[in-house]
């Protein structure tokens, strides 16, 4: 059986919820799996944040395209490393 994976159509400026609302609409329409892209770049713990409703890290425009090094690649903070 073949599944259907979809990426929601999002505006150029990523929504504050990382596209969660649009993704849930696709799931309600029968999509089997949602594949977020940009939100995962800025949030290494995106699944946990979506599950708990925590705020997402904003996407840094200059890091949208990986150009080498850790900047924009592995230096986005996770929830447990953000000072309270």
């Amino acid at each position, binding site marked *: *059986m*073949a*599944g*259907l*994976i*979809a*990426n*929601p*159509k999002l505006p150029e400026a990523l929504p504050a919820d990382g596209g969660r609302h649009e993704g849930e*609409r*696709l799931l*309600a*329409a*029968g*999509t*089997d*799996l949602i*594949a977020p892209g940009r939100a995962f770049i800025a949030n290494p713990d995106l699944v946990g944040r979506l599950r708990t409703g925590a705020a997402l890290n904003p996407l840094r425009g200059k890091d949208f395209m990986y150009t080498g090094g850790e900047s924009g690649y592995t230096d986005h903070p996770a929830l447990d490393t953000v000072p309270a």
Partner: protein
Amino acid sequence: MPTTVSIGPASASSSCPAGRCRLRRRPVPDHETTTAECVGGPDRRRGDHAEPGRPDLPRHSRTPQGGLGGRLAPGDPRGRPADVPAVEARRPERAPGDQWAGPGRAFADHVAGQDLHGPPAPAARDAPGAADGGDRRDRRRLRDSGAQRGRSGLRRGRGARGQRASPPPGPGAEHEPAHRLLRRRAGNRVRFAVEVQAVAEAIGPPRVGPRINAVDEGNTGAIYRTLRREPAGDGPAYLHVLAAQPEDALHREIRATWRG
């Protein structure tokens, strides 16, 4: 196919640097070098005869292992050891006459009879009354209507079968590359579907998931009409659609045919 090699000054050795092949020397005017063509075969003057059972080819056309390429004889020490199993293609068995119902089937049906440009004009021999001279009457009708339709008797802007033909670009019109023209006209990427099926047959359908992009191509529904119309069946494991919209008719159509 002779191989041209430069062998340095004319006074240098005339042997082929890659082997000991027979050379045909060609002096280059005003140069101190000599161009020679390796024409293959042993240089009998040097006693370099071809080995028994080997084609008469230049030595430097052989593989670094000294072979001539192609299949090694069983038991050849240069080949795969006997205890290493051979890699076998995982092409599924298909019974004779068994018609595949995957995405490429639509391509086959399309080639077999579907027409993207509407129904074709009936051929003269298929026209009513063809049995009693229909061909002649049809030719006469086309000839008489030539004044309105052009000297060839065909409708302007139409091909021989009545299909729409692209008008020539007007003066000053910007040239449009073929790939953009194809994209603008929603070229059906049946090749994509065929390639997906070929990969699925080679490595197994559960390991294949094509992805179509509605962002860059815009008219995804038209371009991938084969994928969106064909049920997945036993085909690829999943279909990945970028920039999907739940209220889009294309998404609903894909959802209906690609059931998880």
